[in-house]
């Protein structure tokens, strides 16, 4: 049996990353010893989430809702998952911060090992991303229960013949000790400084790196962002120098993005940056250095100074618009 921890978004829809995890569990059922697919939803279970879980092939939904689980506490939530986890098989979540944290607690509490950022499973074991995606590690967890998280975008969500999932409702009470690390309050962002949603959802992202030159060098790239109705993404050098906030950082320790087009301006293409843009459909580089990794890895490139090139691109867009 496979138990997948399912995250839902604000409107109660199944998160895309959780749909990926469910698809991974279903399509690898034989190697994960998970012929029965179960989903665990903590909090509200909407009609729409219920229907989504059905088309993702879920056989059984555990709906956990109680006063103790209302505010997030990793230990309380993890214990609730442990209480419904199978003895043999797999417990899995997508590799989001929450998925990672919960699976690590589940692993300790069940006395099992865990594999983070798994991308594939076969008879030889698991394959997972290491070094920010620069290499893959093959490993075997052993144990009766495999605890794992799935790397983002390692698997495309796939619908299947809809099931009619049975719903099991639980209202667990948590031990006082498991409520010690409960969220006491959440501040919804009013300033854009911490909000990464624009970046991860944009169809077009303009990337800016050290080549921009200074804090005041973002005029042209920001105008291009505006023409594309897109978002700005930056390298760690840019956030490290304090030119732009960390919420705009793309890469291993920033956001991982999946736009239709990524236009990297003055970014060299370090492995940690590339880790964040693997999901981009088309990659365009604007760089003075033809030999840079970014140019070599791009679909299209312009060799030249980014201020001049992006300035001319903006002008061209304005003139075509008439």
């Amino acid at each position, binding site marked *: 049996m496979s138990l997948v921890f399912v995250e839902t*978004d604000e409107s109660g829809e199944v998160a895309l990353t959780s749909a990926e995890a469910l698809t991974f569990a279903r399509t690898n059922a034989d190697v994960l010893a998970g012929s029965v697919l179960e989903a665990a939803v903590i909090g509200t279970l909407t009609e729409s989430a219920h229907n989504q879980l059905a088309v993702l092939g879920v056989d059984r939904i555990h709906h956990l809702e109680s006063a103790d689980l209302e505010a*997030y506490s*990793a230990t309380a939530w993890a214990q609730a998952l442990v209480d419904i986890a199978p003895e043999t098989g797999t417990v899995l979540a997508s590799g*989001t*911060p*929450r998925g990672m*944290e919960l699976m*690590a*607690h589940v*692993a*300790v509490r069940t006395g099992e*090992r*865990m594999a983070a950022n798994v991308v594939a499973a076969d008879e030889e074991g698991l394959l997972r991303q*290491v*070094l*920010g*995606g*620069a*290499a*893959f*590690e*093959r*490993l*075997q967890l052993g144990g009766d229960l495999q605890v794992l998280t799935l790397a983002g975008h390692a698997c495309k969500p796939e619908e299947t013949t809809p099931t009619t999932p049975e719903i099991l409702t639980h209202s667990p009470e948590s031990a006082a000790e498991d409520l010690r*690390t409960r*969220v*006491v309050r*959440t501040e*919804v962002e009013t300033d854009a400084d*911490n909000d990464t949603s624009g970046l991860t959802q944009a169809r*077009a992202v303009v990337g800016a790196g050290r080549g921009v030159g200074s804090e005041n060098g973002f005029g042209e790239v920001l105008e291009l962002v*505006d*023409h*594309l*109705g*897109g978002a700005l993404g930056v390298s760690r050098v840019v956030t490290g120098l304090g030119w732009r906030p*960390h919420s705009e950082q793309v890469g*291993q*320790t920033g956001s991982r993005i999946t736009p*239709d*087009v990524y236009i990297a301006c003055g970014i060299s293409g*370090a*492995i940690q940056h590339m880790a964040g843009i693997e999901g981009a459909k*088309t990659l*365009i580089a604007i760089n003075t250095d033809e030999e840079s990794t970014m*140019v*070599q*890895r791009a*679909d*299209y*490139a*312009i060799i*030249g100074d980014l201020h*001049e*090139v992006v*300035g*001319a*691109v903006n*002008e*061209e867009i304005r003139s075509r618009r008439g």
Partner: protein
Amino acid sequence: MDILVCIKRIPDIAGQITLDGSGTDIDDAGLGHTTSAHEECAVELAIQTAAATGGKVTVLTLGPAEAVEQLRAAVGVGANDGILIEAEDSGAFGTEDIAQVIGDVIRDRTEGGQNFDLVLLGNDAADTGDFQVPIRLAYDLGYPVLTSISTFSPAGGPVIEARGIGPSGTEIFSLELPAVVAVQEGGVDPRYPSITGRMKAKKARIAEYVAPEPGAGNPRIGLELPPDTANEVTILGEGPDAAGALVDVLEEIGVIRS
């Protein structure tokens, strides 16, 4: 507040990597080494908090003898002293082993009279990315643990207020000490060493332990590199004259706002 920060020596890779002869590790012969990004932020948070509360910062690493470089670098930016747990082949350790070895050293320091109010780590190491050591260590010590924390501040008594980015905004936790906190990059900017810092780093006091043989061991069977997908880049041109060709591409993709 006395704070222990656990850091890891990792290869500083930017471009292509190759595997060593065993096929289970990368060839780091020609590579420099650095500290994981999240941990640099953990060190910075520790230094700020210790300064604000009149405490001390100790940095700890489990790794080869050379990992003393990373401890010295942390002393160079303001940590007070370091602990090296020497393990020639630290890659042979599983997350359970690492947590236990660190837990044993913490208990040993406590017996010797050095108490840590707070144990900081990075969310996950940049090379192995296991995302487990902070949580396993917390269970080993019997402490509460938070992960993905970007900043925290003393909140009166043995309590800190910790903040991290959650799915719907900034989440705030009230954490009773002693505790373990895993830090996520983004809340603070790690400082650079000053000239006096560099001098201090050279004379840093480093306590040394030798790690026992790993118990659980590393579940790794081997490493693989992603397939070398030959890429053909289309150079649209040089300089501003190529702008038209780029706008054509963007129009074709259909991302220009009307």
